[in-house]
């Protein structure tokens, strides 16, 4: 669907660039997001994520390239189409001195919601983010997690086709984080396209149907989690602890199909294998012939390793 670039895509970004003086923040980014799809945009600080998001949100004009939302051009001069967009910025873009409901009333009014419809939508999103009982309190009295949830609620009021969530879980407690992630999963399930950025790899793995890894203003790789892992050639690791003849066990393991490499680690061995679950039985059999195994553990490569491979940096750098 989205991967093929069909007309059903909610967002189509085509080779956009943007410079600030001599600094080229975005050097040619293309991406597409389909309805109901959650797209993760991951990159180290300064990679061009925020600039890309600003262009998709219509806040910044690209120097070149195009952004389309629901098939219509998106940019600072195209105000009407922005009613299809919900932006949840990384900063808590709320008025702390106003009550939660007053904040939502304001952002709803900007989306041309009025009267009963506005009240109904405000009530609905307050329920979604679990703040109905605190709606009459000033935002400055909220906890960090509650502010984050209200920040998200403000982006949902008008049922946008695309919801941009820019690091929505920064600085929140585990309970609030889980509530936020569940909300995002539910929204995606209802057909909303979600563009999600985060510094937490486990969030990307849990939420995102596809992930784009951006660095130096370009999308370095894009695909599902498994596609990205295969793309960079990362292997599963099977670690075996035990006593016996490690040299003979190493020789035997190297004969097992799929095993690429065997290394001694501590009192055991670690095999690098393309698809560990498929070959696990043969590996254990070969090792058991020479070792008395006490523990076997499979470690599959994760996005953190992919990210490190592609960017040379940790995601939290």
């Amino acid at each position, binding site marked *: 669907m989205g991967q093929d670039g069909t007309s059903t895509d909610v967002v189509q970004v085509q080779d956009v660039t943007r410079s600030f003086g001599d600094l080229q923040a975005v050097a040619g980014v293309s991406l597409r997001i389909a309805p109901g799809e959650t797209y993760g945009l991951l990159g180290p600080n300064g990679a061009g994520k925020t600039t890309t998001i600003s262009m998709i949100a219509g*806040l910044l004009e690209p120097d070149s390239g195009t952004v389309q939302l629901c098939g219509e051009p998106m940019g600072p001069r195209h*105000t009407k189409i922005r*009613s299809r967009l919900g*932006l949840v910025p990384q900063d808590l*873009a709320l008025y702390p001195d106003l009550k939660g409901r*007053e904040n939502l009333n*304001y*952002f709803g*009014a*900007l989306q041309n919601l009025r009267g009963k419809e506005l009240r109904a939508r405000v009530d609905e999103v307050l329920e979604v983010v679990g703040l109905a009982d605190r709606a009459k309190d000033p935002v400055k009295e909220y906890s960090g997690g509650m502010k984050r949830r209200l920040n998200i609620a403000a982006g949902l009021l008008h049922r946008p086709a695309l919801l941009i969530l820019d690091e929505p879980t920064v600085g929140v407690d585990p309970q609030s984080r889980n509530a936020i992630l569940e909300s995002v999963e539910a929204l995606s399930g209802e057909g909303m396209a979600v563009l999600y950025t985060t510094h937490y790899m486990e969030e990307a793995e849990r939420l995102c149907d596809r992930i784009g890894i951006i660095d130096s203003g370009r999308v370095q790789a894009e695909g599902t989690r498994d596609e990205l892992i295969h793309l960079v050639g990362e292997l599963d690791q099977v670690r075996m602890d035990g006593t016996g003849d490690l040299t003979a066990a190493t020789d035997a393991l190297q004969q097992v199909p799929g095993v690429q490499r065997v290394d001694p680690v501590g009192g055991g061995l670690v095999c690098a294998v393309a698809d560990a679950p498929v070959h696990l039985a043969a590996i254990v059999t070969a090792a058991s012939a020479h070792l008395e195994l006490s523990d076997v553990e499979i470690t599959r490569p994760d996005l953190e390793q992919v990210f490190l491979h592609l960017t040379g940096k940790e995601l939290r750098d």
Partner: protein
Amino acid sequence: MRAAWAVALVELRRFLRDRSNIFFTFVFPLMLVVVIGAQFGGGAGSGRVVLTDESSTLGQRIAAELDARDVTVDVGEAGQARETLARGRADAAVFIDDAAAAAFDAGDPVQLDLVLASTSGSSAVAQQVQSAVAELDREQAGVAALVQSGVDPDLAQDAWWDGEGQVPPARVDVVDVDDVSQAFAGVTGFDVGASSQVLLFVFLTALAGSATLIDARRHRVIARTLAAPVSAGSVVAGQALGRWVIAFFQGTYVMAGTSLLFGVQWGNVALCLLVVAVFSTVAAGAAMAIGAVLDNEGAASGLGVGLALVLAALGGCMVPQELFPSSLQFVASLTPHGWGYRAFAEIQRHGGTLVDIAGSLAVLAGFAAAVLALGSLLLRRSIARAL
């Protein structure tokens, strides 16, 4: 336009939500009106006189004559009278001793001591006192003439009063040819103080609120607002409208408060509101410019308050423009406050019409157009910077 109203409404709501504004917007201006009103005389009626004796016939008659001339009379011993004068709480004191009282009762010539304070109205009050005493002198002479011509002494006094009742009372109008006195003719100190405070606080309140603009930009609320189907022009218009509403509200509040509490006479209220409306536009534009240029809320508040006070002082809102030397009066004409002050003075003191204030209003409108255009331009740039 709906979006602009939404932005304006939220600005107004935030302003009213700030508890410190309750004091600075609602209480403080009225306190200053009292202070300035007291400083400039508290009233332009016929003044205040202290008598050192009101028990004698002479004292009672002088008090009655002064009262008939709308002069406020207090009674106190000689020491108290001097202290009252020294503190500027009365314009004059009339010292009546026992000898003078007895001489008056006997129909003999009387000599009284009149001491004046250093207040602006003391010379006028002195004339009122002299007029009152002259009236008593005339009465005494008239009664004596009747007695000499054979009228019973008891009937002579009644006959004099009957005759006096059939003749319109003598009236003394004190016309001070001094420019300053003429400028303040017919107005109380509260009137002058109130119009000055309208100008001071309209600007002060608007400029102090410039910090909320920085706050909204810093929290990326403006960026989020622009991610909605809202143009940058609507955001700028909303910010201007919100600040204008706050400034105009402040001005009308001071007008209403001083009218109800201190009986301030505003003259043609519609014209005064027009002046407040145009002046509020200048204030709104200035607030936007400060909020757009600065990125620090504390600095914006400090600069806003400082600028508002300096402009108010130069424009005649702390010391009346009429007391300025000519060089400072020229400086006042470079400030919007100076023109607002002149427009109010024309309306309040001289019953000015729209034609009379057209010049001042036109200059104010020029200020408003220029400052609002500058504020809008700077705000647009700051919004772009915030993205």
